[in-house]
């Protein structure tokens, strides 16, 4: 084993975690805002606004229809504007957040739609405001589905970050391409693959555990 392997992997891992953490955070904030807006403004929703709904839906579909690598290229000027560079993990966060937000919005929209209309009506019938219904009924009731969906989203961002690595984002993806592929370092290639697989397993396991603990608390027999 080469001495530099551990160093390379450690740096790659940290960069990947850094990118995934911040991209997930920003994508989640955007995704929750957009996803909630989609559910609330749809026809028959708690605050119907068909024009807003349609506009957001169209933008989301537009962004989602672009292959990620093209989206990253398109967003390079924005990265330069916000973080001052188009290279490295910080620049990638801009593209990854914007690339993943529409995906997360749809996941969040679908989870929220699972909440039965009856529960919402019950809340309306006691005089709750749309704001109260969103934060006290819609989101808490959909929480297990939301956690599962967000887990899928974060794993998606992890995959995106590896793709971004191919065009200068850094992280494990970049390591696999630059060392494993271009410099024929099989040890690097195999180690990064193992690390990526482990990371995905850990994310999935954490998400599942959180969702399960919520479900267990609400739906258990004594």
């Amino acid at each position, binding site marked *: 084993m080469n001495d530099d392997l551990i160093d390379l992997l450690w740096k790659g891992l940290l960069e990947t975690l850094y990118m995934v953490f911040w991209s997930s955070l920003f994508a989640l904030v955007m995704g929750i805002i957009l996803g909630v807006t989609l559910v609330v403004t749809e026809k028959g929703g708690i605050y119907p606004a068909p024009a807003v709904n349609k506009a957001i839906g169209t933008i989301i579909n537009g962004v989602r229809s672009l292959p990620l690598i093209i989206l990253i290229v398109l967003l390079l000027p924005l990265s330069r504007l916000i973080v001052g560079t188009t290279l490295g993990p910080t620049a990638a966060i801009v593209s990854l957040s914007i690339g993943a937000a529409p995906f997360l919005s749809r996941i969040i929209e679908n989870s929220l739609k699972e909440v*039965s209309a*009856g*529960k919402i*009506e*019950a*809340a*309306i*019938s*006691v*005089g*709750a*405001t749309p704001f*109260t219904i969103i934060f*006290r*009924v819609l989101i*808490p*009731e959909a*929480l297990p589905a939301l956690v599962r969906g967000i887990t899928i989203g974060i794993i998606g961002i992890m995959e995106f970050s590896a793709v971004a690595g191919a065009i200068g984002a850094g992280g494990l993806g970049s390591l696999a391409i630059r060392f494993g592929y271009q410099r024929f370092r099989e040890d690097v290639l195999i180690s990064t693959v193992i690390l990526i697989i482990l990371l995905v397993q850990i994310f999935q396991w954490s998400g599942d555990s959180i969702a399960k603990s919520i479900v267990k*608390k*609400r*739906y*258990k*027999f*004594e």
Partner: protein
Amino acid sequence: MIHIQHLNKSYKTAAGSIPVLQDINLHISKGDIFGIIGFSGAGKSTLIRCLNRLEEPDSGTIRIAGKVITELEEKELRQARQKIGMIFQQFNLLDAKTVYQNVAFPLEVAGYRKAFIREQVRAMLDLVQLSDKEDVYPFQLSGGQKQRVGIARALVNQPDLLLSDEATSALDPQTTYSILELLKEINRQLKLTIVLITHELDVLQHVCNNMAVLEKGRIVETGSVDKFFLYPQSDTAKRFVHIIDHYREKRNVWEGAGAGI
């Protein structure tokens, strides 16, 4: 208490507009337990849901306790809804909240202090005999218990009116009976007006004083429940009461022939 005048409602579909309620006129007095009966698709559910504007009527006026419900702005409507309790066939409890939190919800919406909420919720749970289930989640409750929580939630903010949308239709006869007894008890204790819709004669006969028959979106008969059973006028009423007559005749034949049961 409730005055409904010239209420109309239709659903717009691709094929055109389908009338659901046509020129509904109804008066319900304070303290009454008023039943609305009809077959599926007669418009019962739409009618009761118009009373707190879960459904928006197309035209007509609804006055409840002096307020013209049909003219209220969003904010006023929300305030009016705080004084109109509603219970549902599928209970519609929140799975994420305990029994206590479910019942406390309307009071939190209304912005009351924690101490006051605790007092009211405890009193309400006592009334529906679920004091020992405070910290339990709805999933663990039986259908009857869930509806008791639903009733507690509907009444905790001391409404003037309780709307019951087929509240016992998902329950077995025994449980239905106990829920109906509870409604009667509440009507007596709190002097609460109750409007309920049902397709079960049993429910009508057991709790209601007055009633209306809904047929294809129109009210075809109103009056006391006794009058409905003794002198059914409309087709719907006759079809409902028909089965009772059928057995009455059968009994006459049996008794005439000297047979016992």
